[in-house]
């Protein structure tokens, strides 16, 4: 397999292109722009046969793919940060209508103060929307994840939208050697989209009807049930991908040197790469340390996480988002994994890298040092003391 030295956004756009989306909607917002720009080039050059709709807002970007998906088209859009927040009303609507749209959420901080750099506050804010959320570690995974996303979303037993989350700038604007997926390979992996229900005069159905107290709850129940079914489908699709392409970046989770570890760091997204380097460094010095990547955040794979970490004495959750008023979002969910289990490890939560604050090797070392010394705390790491003391 040959690799191409390519920007993350362009690799993602090329992969989306070979998934043969039939309708794409796009509204520009940094750092999502390179993805939709490249897709528009593919359409302009005739490499991708697709209706490319330049909308006037992210609300309409999501609404256009909603209408198109309900009509039976494979659809794609991408956004980030403020655009993502503007979409949220539609995102809930899409999931409620069981439309298998695939979207890239380029992860970026949210305003105020306005900040265009990376953290994961945007996508985590829509945690409860009914979208499957997958987080990519590097550009190879981000690229490959889009092909997997369509297969997961359009599975007849799932029919839920899938969001591929990738860190803004850190992934989208960095160049890496990537094994790109060819059209032939994509066609072999992903069948055409043939929905059971869609808008057509041949079978006039009503979508998005008003449901009162007599039926609303069941719609939420069915989505929750489907989320549980999707745990298996996400694993299966990752395994299928491994079989065809020889690449495996994890199913629901991925682990690195966790088996005999006493301390495990848990995280999502591009920070995993940095942590792996430190794991290698500290292992060389004899410290039993590993890292667990949460690849599927929704559905949340609590059984897999428990299985992987049940032997561990200490867990340090590092995350680039915060539930203001209750600390780390992922940290609290990792804690809940151990509720009612016979042994609970020490679990510390660390919030870092907000608004693009650098996460260096030293930042992670600080986390590890702190985690060894304290019991069950949540902290901001890497704060600028000069600003705080003013």
């Amino acid at each position: 397999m040959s690799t191409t030295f390519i920007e993350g956004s362009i690799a993602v756009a090329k992969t989306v292109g070979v998934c043969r989306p039939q309708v794409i909607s796009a509204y520009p917002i940094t750092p999502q722009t390179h993805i939709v720009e490249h897709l528009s080039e593919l359409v302009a050059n005739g490499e991708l046969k697709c209706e490319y709709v330049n909308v006037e807002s992210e609300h309409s970007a999501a609404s256009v793919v909603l209408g198109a998906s309900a009509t039976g088209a494979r659809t794609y859009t991408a956004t980030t940060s403020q655009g993502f927040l503007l979409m949220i009303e539609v995102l809930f609507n899409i999931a409620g209508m069981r439309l298998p749209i695939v979207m890239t959420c380029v992860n970026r901080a949210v305003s105020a103060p306005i900040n265009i750099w990376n953290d994961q506050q945007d996508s985590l804010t829509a945690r409860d929307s009914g979208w499957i959320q997958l987080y990519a570690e590097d550009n190879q995974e981000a690229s490959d994840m889009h092909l997997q996303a369509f297969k997961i979303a359009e599975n007849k037993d799932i029919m839920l939208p899938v969001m591929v989350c990738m860190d803004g700038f850190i992934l989208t604007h960095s160049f890496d050697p990537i094994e790109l997926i060819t059209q032939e390979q994509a066609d072999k992996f992903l069948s055409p989209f043939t929905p059971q229900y869609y808008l057509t005069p041949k079978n006039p159905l009503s979508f998005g009807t008003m449901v009162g107290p007599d039926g609303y709850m069941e719609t939420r129940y069915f989505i929750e049930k489907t989320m549980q079914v999707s745990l298996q489908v996400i694993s299966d699709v990752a395994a299928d991908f491994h079989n065809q392409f020889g690449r495996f970046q994890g199913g629901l989770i991925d682990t690195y040197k966790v088996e005999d570890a006493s301390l495990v760091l848990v995280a999502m997204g591009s920070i995993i790469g940095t942590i792996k380097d430190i794991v290698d460094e500290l292992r060389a010095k004899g410290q039993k340390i590993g890292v667990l990547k949460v690849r599927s955040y929704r559905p949340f794979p609590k059984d897999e996480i428990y299985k992987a970490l049940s032997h561990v004495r200490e867990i340090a959750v590092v995350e680039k988002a915060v539930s203001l008023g209750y600390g780390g979002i992922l940290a609290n969910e990792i804690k809940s994994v151990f509720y009612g289990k016979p042994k609970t490890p020490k679990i510390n939560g660390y919030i870092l890298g907000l608004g693009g604050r650098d996460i260096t090797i030293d930042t992670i070392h600080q986390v590890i040092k702190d985690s060894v010394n304290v019991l069950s705390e949540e902290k901001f790491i890497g704060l600028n003391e000069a600003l705080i003391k003013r």
Partner: protein
Amino acid sequence: MATTTLTAPTEHACGPLLAAGHTACTGCGEALAAKLVLGAAGSNIIVTSATGCLEVFTTRFPQSSWEVPFIHSLFENSAAVASGIEAALKALGRQNEAKVIAQGGDGGTADIGLQALSGMLERGHDILYVCYDNEAYMNTGVQRSGLTPFDCMTTTSPYGEYSWGNKHNKKDMPGIAAAHGIPYVATASVAFPKDIENKVKKALTITGPKYLQIHSPCPLGWRSNPQLTIKVAKLAVETGLYPIFEIENGKVTKVRKVKTPKTPVEEYLKIQGRFAHLFKSAEAKEEIQKIQEIADRNIEKYGLA
């Protein structure tokens, strides 16, 4: 697999495309207008609806009045959802399968949905957008919208010691639509059903974005007698307060003339509770005069006399 889709009752398959049995109020102008639009368009259509009375009174689970494919998503995105449907039909090579009709009330069209509608009009989608204009947010309990007329009493523009009701003039929504350079803009009224049908049929022969705004009295919100819906609507047209016209490629091509001598606006206002405060005092006469001037300006602007 679980699904939220519903099938329309088949026993009405040969009847109106908006089946009877929905829960609209007695004398509802919007229900009448929607039935006329669908009847004129025929069954080879896909329709969207903004959130509002229309969606509420036609789709109460587990029933649906729609004998045509129907989708309701949100309040402000009827035009954007329709844009996606139209794009999908093109992408799937199914353009000949159905015409796309987007629907919304006055709030969903001229206020919260204006941006999405502007996008749809500017991008040139082959869609007929129909605004059922009942001049306030009726579904939420008669609050003022951008299409509420001047001095009209609503629950958020009440009459009081310091207020004659709605302080602002009705937004020129057809003018805004026409400013997008689209091929067809028209207004209509439920008082003239044939005219609605003709305009829908004509619009659907034109490729590109079309905008049709239909004056649809709401007896509940207008506090008018439900038996008088057609009469009220007719008086709005005859006084010049609701001008009926067609704008093709930017030019007014056809209008419905008003009778001479002209019908004073009092005739229209006095049969509606929403204007009752204008008949309670001597100083209210000045307000009625302001409304007469609005009608006169319409008659002048569109050459209705």
